[in-house]
């Protein structure tokens, strides 16, 4: 069924068009919206686009990194200042998907996709959105919890503090097909150190709930401790707490619960 395509030069106009029409979807790289159209999703009757250069911007020179919503994973992989994000970017799709898929779109990708968002959750990112009432900054957790209701808001950018050291941010995606494939589970950890102690631990999990979630019990097991064998064991044991994974063709909920602690242990031990 033909849809109406509305293209704007500014994100503000696009946001207004998006918020005024419940059947409108924002088209970024196309890997979600065009796929829905190809599958015959009749809930979409309007496609909104914006050719706003601000949404394509990467600012990674300072301590705070800002990625425009339209930044593709291929561009992240080409950016030396973003080396810590290369593992999550590389874990997504094949080269064509990475040339198309965007940081902003990934926030809306449901299981078994959305791996980059798991990394963003571990890094405590802030999502800049523009709705009908103007722009605002939303913590990523809050954004994800209301994701289903966010189709009328336009994501402009995502920003976060650059990890203090290369070792502080860790990521791994467990997939049956390598290097490409939907996630069985995805793990990301941010472990800032104060001396030998972890201060401000964040552990994020993908495919362990309908949206990416934080493993708060594992974070508590890490907080204030040094990253030794007993701390890692305690975090690994706690990883499954508070999770609610589902069954899909890639793995069962039972399997996901069984392996999440195993992979968190390996991630924290530097084995993945």
């Amino acid at each position, binding site marked *: 069924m*033909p849809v109406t*395509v509305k293209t704007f030069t500014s994100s503000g106009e696009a946001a207004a068009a998006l918020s005024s029409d419940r059947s409108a979807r924002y088209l970024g790289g196309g*890997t979600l919206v065009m*796929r829905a159209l*190809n599958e015959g999703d009749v809930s979409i009757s309007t*496609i909104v686009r914006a050719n706003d250069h601000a949404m394509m911007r990467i600012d990674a020179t300072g301590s705070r990194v800002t990625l425009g919503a339209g930044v593709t994973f291929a561009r992240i992989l080409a950016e030396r200042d973003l080396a810590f994000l290369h593992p999550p970017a590389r874990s997504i799709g094949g080269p*064509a998907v990475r040339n198309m898929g965007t940081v902003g779109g990934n926030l809306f990708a449901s299981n078994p996709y959305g791996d980059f968002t798991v990394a963003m959750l571990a890094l405590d990112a802030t999502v800049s959105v523009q709705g009908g009432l103007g722009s605002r900054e939303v913590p990523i957790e809050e954004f994800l919890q209301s994701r289903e209701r966010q189709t009328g808001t336009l994501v402009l950018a995502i920003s976060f503090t650059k990890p203090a050291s290369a070792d502080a941010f860790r990521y791994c995606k467990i997939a049956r097909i390598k290097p490409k494939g939907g996630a069985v589970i995805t793990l990301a950890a941010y472990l800032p150190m104060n001396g030998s102690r972890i201060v401000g631990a964040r552990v994020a999990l993908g495919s362990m709930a309908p949206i990416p979630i934080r493993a708060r019990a594992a974070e508590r097991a890490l907080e204030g401790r040094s990253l030794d064998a007993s701390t890692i064991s305690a975090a690994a044991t706690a990883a499954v707490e508070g999770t609610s994974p589902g069954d899909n063709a890639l793995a069962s909920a039972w399997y996901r619960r069984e392996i999440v602690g195993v992979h968190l242990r390996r991630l924290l031990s530097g084995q993945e």
Partner: protein
Amino acid sequence: MAKTALQFRHNGRDVAIFVDGGTNLLVALRELIGDMTPKFGCGQGGCGTCSVLIDGELHLSCLTLAETVAGRSVETLDGIKDGPNLHPLQRAFADNFAAQCGYCTPGMLMAAKALLDRNSQPSRAEVVEAISGNICRCTGYEPIINAVLAAASVSRARA
């Protein structure tokens, strides 16, 4: 619903068509321009057989809104041969038995071309990575990987 006029370069030739809103590039190429080389596989971005180069960059035509290529250059498998002469990649695919049913071949060739265009001497691992978005259910991939490496060594011998 009104159609949208769309002009772009298709394998070095200017084309002008009218598309319905929401038409993807694969449909535009196959049904409106008559270039049957990109194939429809999954329509979801999972198989890669619709792969084309847009301004030299590998894209999935089934997930590309046709009107986003306005004024840009689209290259498909139909454009890579030189008159009656096969492209070195096509020759290498034939010599190395890299096609069986052939359905993945157009996408494999475009993914391989995207790689060799920017890296004429890839490692085996780089070839594997380059075709990782393309599914082949016949060959087990080994003949395809060998063919891409063989095409790279042909271009090295010529250089």
